[in-house]
């Protein structure tokens, strides 16, 4: 097998409220970890956008990764009604130009995924082909199902699902081709193999959850999956490059 080109869809930088001594907090630390593990690129969000304020966190993210070509911004977003962020159309355009993505924290930031709250915003992101990431701990499968049904062109990436999810996931995958899964914590026994056979490798993305979780586990899930090398390349990084519009 040729060396895989890993593009991590799930990383964080920034000073946070509960760091551990071994956690890195800045872009240099993330890049050092990526070099050590053999990860080419990463999509990264800022702890401030989660724990302080999406606008401040997004600005800090842009400053912190300004010169780092290997790091792609993942911005936090909010319902547009409170006008805390630029208008959906401007925001979506800026994110697309930065080859970035948007991450939603409905539980932490106190809003619902209902179309009344975020419908316009998700339309704008769909239009600009900006992928949307969401931790399963911030939502539920019923809301995800509704978002997928109402926004069929939106690339949705669900994060940190762990392994007890197939009975929720498979019915959605039977219907929605735009649902993607961060497979870093998808520790289903031979699960990647099963998903590739039934739904195709396009549904899965490599993600680590650095700096909270380590790299070896998510990496081994991909490298040791009983699937073709082409499928491994898609999961390792090809799928994320595609949805972000990164050409190489």
């Amino acid at each position: 097998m040729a060396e895989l080109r890993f593009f991590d869809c799930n990383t964080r930088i920034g000073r946070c409220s509960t760091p551990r001594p071994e956690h890195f907090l800045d872009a240099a630390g993330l890049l050092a970890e990526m070099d050590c593990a053999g990860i080419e690129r990463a999509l990264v969000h800022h702890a401030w956008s989660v724990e302080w304020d999406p606008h401040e966190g997004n600005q800090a993210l842009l400053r912190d990764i300004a010169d780092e070509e290997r790091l792609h911004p993942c911005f936090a977003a909010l319902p547009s009604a409170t006008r805390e962020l630029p208008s959906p159309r401007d925001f979506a355009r800026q994110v697309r130009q930065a080859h970035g993505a948007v991450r939603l924290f409905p539980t932490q930031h106190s809003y619902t995924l209902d179309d009344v709250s975020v419908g316009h915003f998700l339309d704008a992101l769909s239009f600009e082909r900006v992928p949307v990431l969401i931790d399963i701990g911030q939502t539920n499968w019923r809301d995800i199902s509704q978002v997928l049904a109402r926004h069929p062109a939106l690339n949705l990436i669900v994060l940190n699902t762990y392994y007890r999810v197939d009975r929720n996931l498979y019915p959605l995958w039977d219907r929605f081709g735009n649902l993607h899964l961060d497979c870093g914590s998808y520790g289903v026994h031979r699960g990647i193999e099963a998903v590739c056979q039934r739904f195709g490798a396009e549904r899965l993305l490599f993600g680590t959850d650095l700096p909270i979780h380590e790299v070896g586990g998510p990496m081994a899930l991909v490298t040791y999956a009983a699937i073709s090398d082409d499928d491994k390349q898609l999961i390792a990084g090809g799928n994320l490059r595609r949805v972000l519009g990164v050409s190489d």
Partner: protein
Amino acid sequence: MTDTFVDACRLGQALAGELVIDAHAHMGPWHNFHIPHNSARGMVERLDQLGIDACVSSPHVAIGPCYREGNRQVMAAADEYPERIIPYVTINPNYPEAETREEIEHWHSFARIKAFKIHPACHSYKVDGPGYGLMFEYAREHSVPVLSHSWAGDSQAGATLLSRMAGEMPNVTFIVGHAASSWSMIDEACGEAQGKDNVVLDLTGSQLLYMALEKMVERVGAAKILFGSDIPFIDPAPGLGRILMARLSDDDKRQILGLTTKRVFGL
């Protein structure tokens, strides 16, 4: 440190010439979620893909509703895949003592008791309760290791309780299950394992915390830590990959991958 283990993980290559044993395995379906290829055959195929020589197994039905059915399943699987599937004998302390005695005597008569597995959480029973009495009696008499499920804040079988019991039974090795499942569990389990020869720590779990394995090795040494995965409850690749990619010496990785288990189980 060479890059043998790191390269194997990056390239998805089965390790060659290294002893790798998964000391915490199950088998079969489970009520709570879908598990593809969960049969003994499906598991052995997975072991082959990962270069894992053997696993020590207690079927899901054993830690769930029927330990006797589980013990029969794993013995049959061990007969079908000798050296690949090593059986635990599982005990459910909620059944009458006479039944436990019969089960232990049965497997003893075939010389098939290599290790016990208990799940005080699933069976909702405290590990030092009388229902486990006969099993521990046998374990002391025959120096048989015991793997117990454990968790942070676990009132049935926390690391501190297991370690206290280990102090009372110096020839029984207590394997503390899921010892790396959270930072509070790591702190408790490492604190308890320090200085106790017969307390070892199992890495099984889905939370692969950044730098946790390195911290554990620093605190208790690799000879007290063993690889377990929960296969097929959880795929073994992540647990294996964490060890292969860790910032540890090759010798430490060898201990964790197989040598600790070889020693503890007398394989």
